């Protein structure tokens, strides 16, 4: 909701308003985009200016992030291209500890003078705020890695694929959807390259080249007669991959219940757009759900959001501690529950892991945004809450010595803080297929892909929608439903919902 088109548009021309997200930075051409702005040696020299300045002003710790964030958006609508834009955001963020307190300043003037001024501001802010500090910030030890680098293992850099090829593919997908009767179709590709250079006063100089890619579309079906409309979004996922994600390899396709096709490690946008238009028609004609109690069979394309909201967020230590109390809220997974070592989060077969290393995933990087090497760890083991997500200034509160490596900042201009890694539900010991799960359900709903979502500030009461809903009757799919949203069966929680839902887990 935050950046809907209601944002103050002043300062943007008609052309600039075509950019789907104007906050991403400046527009650049492709040739410039593909040219490295500066090498690691130059970045090290600039970072050292910041490190030396803050040290001389009394900072006891400093980290510097020189970030160049490149985005490409290709957006189309029906038979025409709406916009192709390349944006760049380049700048430096400097975070310090002075008088035991954090301070941060950022600037897009990445020159010796600009960096020096920002470094001075960061220290001044830390000192001004130190009067509030009850206890000095305590950082967990982190090794100095020296000069190292990491790159997302991509096969084909999506930025290097000609725009025409991308436009042609999107328009071909649109054409298929329109051919099958879609009223409207919007499609897009969104590319990210984060060139992040991290340097700290502890001697790490980390150069990372991170790639992310998300192709997708929305097919809309309008029934003018009844005045109703439905939208079917793409079954693609945002990935830490290159253009190879669009290979749509047969081995990556999964035929699901209700005649649907799902995608795993690669994606077929033409096929999916074709299916989308057909399903959107069915969505309009589908019968409305009868309110009541149902067993749910949830596809991973839906489940990820339920996990994200009701497992990922409540295990973030900053929420547990109250640092997010004013906005996102706190957490039902309070410290005492963790300390008891027996808080039953879900049934015995429920295992959730946090992972910043999973190849191809959105969250995978080599090092986090405070220079900690990334890893994988357990959050819920055999149904019990065993750990949280914590960064360098938090882990001592858990009696742990090492950061979990999940510190992140969305931009050079924002201060980094603890953010969710990939949080995944592990397969069961004897995995079932969705069909096998459905066969054991007498009265239920099979839900595909995430839709509407809302959850309270401690993560007890949620309500999730979806995109496709199939009625399950006596172990079989019995047609499509619409107007479905689910809440936990007991008012007191996601916890019980997890217990009920987790009778079986697929591979």
């Amino acid at each position, binding site marked *: 909701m*935050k950046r809907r088109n*209601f944002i103050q548009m002043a*300062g943007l021309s008609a052309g600039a308003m075509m950019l789907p997200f104007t906050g991403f930075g400046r527009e650049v051409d492709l040739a410039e985009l593909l040219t490295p702005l500066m090498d690691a040696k130059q970045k090290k020299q600039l970072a050292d200016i910041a490190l030396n300045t803050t040290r001389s002003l009394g900072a006891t710790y400093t980290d510097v992030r020189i970030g160049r964030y490149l985005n490409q958006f290709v957006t189309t609508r029906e038979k025409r291209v709406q916009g192709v834009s390349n944006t760049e955001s380049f700048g430096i963020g400097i975070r310090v500890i002075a008088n035991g307190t954090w301070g941060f*300043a950022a600037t897009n003037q990445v020159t010796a003078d600009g960096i020096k001024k920002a470094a001075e501001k960061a220290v001044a*802010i830390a000192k001004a705020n130190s009067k509030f500090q009850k206890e000095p910030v305590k950082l967990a030890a982190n090794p100095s890695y020296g000069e190292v680098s990491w790159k997302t293992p991509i096969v084909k850099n999506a930025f290097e694929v000609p725009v025409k090829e991308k436009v042609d593919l999107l328009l071909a997908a649109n054409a298929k959807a329109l051919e099958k009767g879609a009223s409207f179709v919007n499609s897009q590709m969104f590319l990210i390259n984060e060139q992040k250079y991290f340097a700290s006063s502890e001697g790490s100089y980390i150069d990372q080249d991170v790639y992310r890619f998300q192709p997708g579309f929305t097919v809309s079906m309008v029934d003018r007669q009844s005045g109703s409309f439905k939208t079917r979004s793409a079954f693609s996922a945002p990935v830490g991959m290159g253009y190879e994600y669009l290979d749509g390899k047969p081995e990556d396709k999964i035929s699901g219940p209700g005649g649907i096709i799902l995608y795993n490690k690669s994606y077929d946008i033409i096929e999916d757009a074709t299916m989308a238009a057909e399903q959107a028609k069915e969505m309009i004609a589908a019968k409305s759900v009868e309110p009541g109690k149902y067993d749910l069979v949830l596809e991973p394309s839906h489940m990820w959001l339920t996990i994200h909201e009701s497992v990922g967020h409540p295990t973030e230590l900053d929420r547990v501690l109250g640092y997010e109390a004013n906005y996102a809220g706190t957490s039902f997974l*309070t410290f005492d529950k963790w300390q008891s070592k027996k808080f039953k989060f879900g049934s015995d077969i429920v295992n959730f892991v946090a992972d910043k290393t999973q190849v191809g995933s959105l969250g995978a990087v080599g090092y986090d945004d405070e220079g900690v090497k990334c890893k994988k760890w357990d959050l819920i083991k055999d149904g019990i809450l065993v750990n949280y997500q914590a960064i360098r200034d938090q882990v001592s509160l858990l009696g742990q010595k090492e950061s979990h490596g999940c510190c992140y900042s969305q931009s050079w201009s924002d201060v980094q803080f603890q953010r969710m890694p990939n949080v995944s539900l592990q397969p069961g010991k004897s995995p079932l297929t969705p069909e096998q799960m459905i066969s054991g359900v007498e009265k239920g709903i099979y839900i595909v892909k995430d839709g509407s979502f809302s959850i309270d*500030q401690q993560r007890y009461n949620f309500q999730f929608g979806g995109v496709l809903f199939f009625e399950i009757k006596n172990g079989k799919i019995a047609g499509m439903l619409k107007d479905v949203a689910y809440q936990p069966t007991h008012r007191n929680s996601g916890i019980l919902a997890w217990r009920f839902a987790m009778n079986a887990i697929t591979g």
Partner: protein
Amino acid sequence: MPIMSKDEAQALLKKVLSYSKADECEVNLSGTDSGNIRYARNSVSTSGRVSQHQLVVSSAFGKKLGIATINEFDDASLKKVVERAEELARLAPENPEYVPFLGPQTYAESKTYIAATAAITPKLRSDLVEQSIKVAKEAGAVAAGFLEDNTGFVAMMNSKGLFAYNTSTNTNFSVTVRTADGTGSGYATRGYNDITKLDTKTATQIATQKAVKSVKARAIEPGKYTVILEPAAVAVLLENIFFRLDARQADEGRSFLSKAGGGTRLGEKLVDERVNIYSDPLNPDLPTSTWNGDGRPQEKVSWIEKGVIKNLSYERYWAEKKGVKAVPGPDAAIMEGGTKSLEELIAGTKKGVLVTRLWYIRDVDPQSLLLTGLTRDGTFYIENGRIQYPIKNFRFNESPIIMLNNLEELGKVERTVSVESNQNYLLPPLKVRDFTFSSLSDAV
């Protein structure tokens, strides 16, 4: 550097345009200087300051448009950015919906800039936060809050003679106070252009009071209740109407303003006749820019008058196609209220629920504008004109359109901030019957 005067901006924009060889060229220039403090557990957690500026060049050859941007303003960089925009325009596919840039326009002088806000110092920021933390500490409670301030300028000029310039300042503040044992929680938020109006102490006292009074909340059955919504709760519901006034979406059949059988609901009475919603850039209590991003003047526009949809917003292409005035969407919204205070609304209520804040608002059905979300940080049961006791939070499923049909009373208008969009509005508290709460939440 980020904040340029009108003369400086004009000179720079003229220089950029002098490099243009395109059929049409438009240049947008902006700069911001912003600061913030985030605090939690009665202590500052993060704090920072960001300065940025940017120049956007849009060049067109026929119906082919190219855009390039830069944040360095030396002559060579400015020439480069114009060349790049022209290069991209030549390579771009023709856009059948391209509309030529506007010619010279007349704009009213805006009231969005307050010098005191622009002159904010790190000390003032930290003093404002210190006052807030002090209130919570003295009550034995725990505060978490966020204070941010922005000073910015925007300017644009094009080859057809249009020039526009504006400066603005604003500050938003919010605080959540929780009792030490976490069983009570209260909230307050404030937004102003003028930081001298910001009273963090009083705001935190209100949040603290709500926290203390919301301890030992009782569970009551979900269902339909008469509710009194404080302006902060009204904001997050009604902005879903303000955001979706676009005529094209309605014409295309995919908006709550689309009519069955075709056409839009413009001119139809959609809600209670006491509902009047408009935008006015010159309102002294909620000033906004007098021009929008493509150079169109922002004027006073009535959106809903006596319950009737009076205007829809148009992008310039769609307005041209439809042969109507291209009214831009609002930058802020104002709803007319009544004369009663919140206390008087409560006093006149036999049975009902006082909702001080709503949270996590999402669409359930865009066609009926059905929304879901939850109450938060202080929900109270009212009986016989008095607050009786705190109640546990509810999830609601309700459409603001239905809600405005079930209107009982409107209170006195005040400036409020949406916790969802950060937008500021002038809204009254509302008393509404049959508001649908669908389930309970144990969250505090």
